[in-house]
Each structure stands twice: as structure tokens, then as C-alpha cells.
């Protein structure tokens, strides 16, 4: 099967940077959800680098909400970095631009909620 979403995992101290590239749609959003929950279950902070995301749909956003909620419950930090304009549009529609911590750079030492 042609891969549509690439996920790269880089671990820095307590933070995992998950770099996405490709399209996050209904077909692959379950994988994103799983990757996020895996990192959080290992007591790590999570930063999603969105620079390479060409498309994201509501199911991809739902995966991120799950990650965000799990992080909050576990007292871990959770943030998105370098969100492209097309993805920002979807976040704004869901009013999540006010909920998620959005960073300009994928800095593993981010100050976060």
C-alpha cells in the first residue's frame, strides 16, 4: 500500500517530537492517535511538528484532541509546532487554536501547559 502519512519520532530527554509529513485523513488518523497515546503512556511530553502536513481532516484533529486530553490527565505537556495555514484553518473552525499550545519552532524544551 502506498504510504500517505510518514511519522518520525525523535526523543529528547522527556519530550518526544513527532514529525508528520503527508496527509492526515480518516484512513491514517488512527495511527496518529496510537502514536500519540503510546508516547504519553510512557510519561513523555509530546510536541507534534506539523510542518510537512499537506492536509488534515476532522478525524486527524480528533486524534490530536485525544492526545491533548490524555496529556492533561497525565500532567504531561502537549503542543503543536509549525502548523501550516491549511491546518490552522481547520483548527480555527474547531476553535482549537485557543486550546492547543501552538509553537513557531519545534523546540523540545518548550514551556507548556
Amino acid at each position, binding site marked *: 500500500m502506498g504510504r*500517505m502519512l510518514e511519522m518520525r519520532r525523535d526523543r529528547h530527554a522527556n519530550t518526544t517530537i513527532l514529525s508528520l509529513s503527508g*496527509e492526515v*485523513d*480518516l*484512513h491514517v488518523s488512527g495511527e496518529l492517535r496510537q502514536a500519540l497515546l503510546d508516547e504519553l503512556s510512557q510519561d513523555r511530553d509530546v510536541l507534534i511538528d506539523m510542518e510537512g502536513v499537506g*492536509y488534515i*481532516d*476532522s*478525524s486527524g*484533529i*480528533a*486524534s490530536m*484532541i*485525544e492526545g*491533548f*486530553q490524555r496529556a492533561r490527565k497525565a500532567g504531561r505537556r502537549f503542543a503543536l509546532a509549525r502548523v501550516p495555514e*491549511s491546518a490552522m*484553518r*481547520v483548527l480555527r*473552525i*474547531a*476553535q482549537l487554536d485557543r*486550546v492547543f499550545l501552538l509553537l513557531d519552532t519545534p523546540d523540545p524544551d518548550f514551556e507548556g501547559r
Partner: protein
Amino acid sequence: MTASKAFAAADGDSRPSPTMASDTVFELHLAARSRTLKIVRAAVTALGEDAGCSLKATEELVSAVDEACQNVIRHAYKKECDGRIVIKASCEGDRLVLRVVDFAEPVDPEKIRPRPLDELRPGGIGTRVIRACVDEVAFETPQQGAGNCLRLIKRIS
């Protein structure tokens, strides 16, 4: 579902008309599966570019059609993954009209509600995306034989 299985044997018999209505750009028929969504997005992107939409308008149209197809896959057909989705694209003056047609049980439009935005939980965003991304969205009376037809209208800009 029995009704749709009974129809399935007729698959080889469905005969499209030899001509296209003059404002129709394309009709795309797919199985209601998440794998085929990228084909929908590719076709709608080419449509938006060809019609002279801006990148933003094209992306919005793509999002709206993709979300409408997702709702058909997840809610209208539930687990029936051989159900057909038809996307009809036409260009009417300065507007692109996209119809997302399914052959599932008719849905009650009153039941389609996005979740309130102050409730933070996964889900319930798709219909908001559709409304925000196109200029008009409405269920239309489907053609005979079809279940539902969601019409999306986007002004070319």
C-alpha cells in the same frame, strides 16, 4: 443490508447515459472506504484549479467534500464498506456545485448536529468544517434509487 445486497447483482447492468449534462464536469463513483478519500481529494483539487479557484478556495472545497464523504462512510453506511458514493461536480456560472450522493437509508437532517464547541472531546467537527468551507450546504431530494444527496456550493474566488 439485504436491500443493497439484492441490488448488487445488478452492478454489471447499470448503464450510464452516453452523454453528460453540459455543466457536469465529472462524476466520481467510489466504494465507501477511507482508502478512496485521497482519490476524491485529487479530483476535487484538479477541479478547483481548473475552475480558477484560489489555493485557499480549492483547499476549502476539498475539505468540505472529504468531510461529507467521511460522514457517508462512517454514519450513513456504518460498516457496509461496499456501498457506493457518487460525487457529482458541476460548474454553474461562477459557482462550483458538488453533490455527494449515497444509497443508504435516508437520514433525518435534524439528527445531523455538530457538537457544541465548548465541549472538548474528539468528534463532532466534520459538519462544522463543511459549513465553514463552502457557501451553501443542504440536503437535496435524491434521484430515484439513491438514499441521500448533500449539495455543496462554492463560489469561484
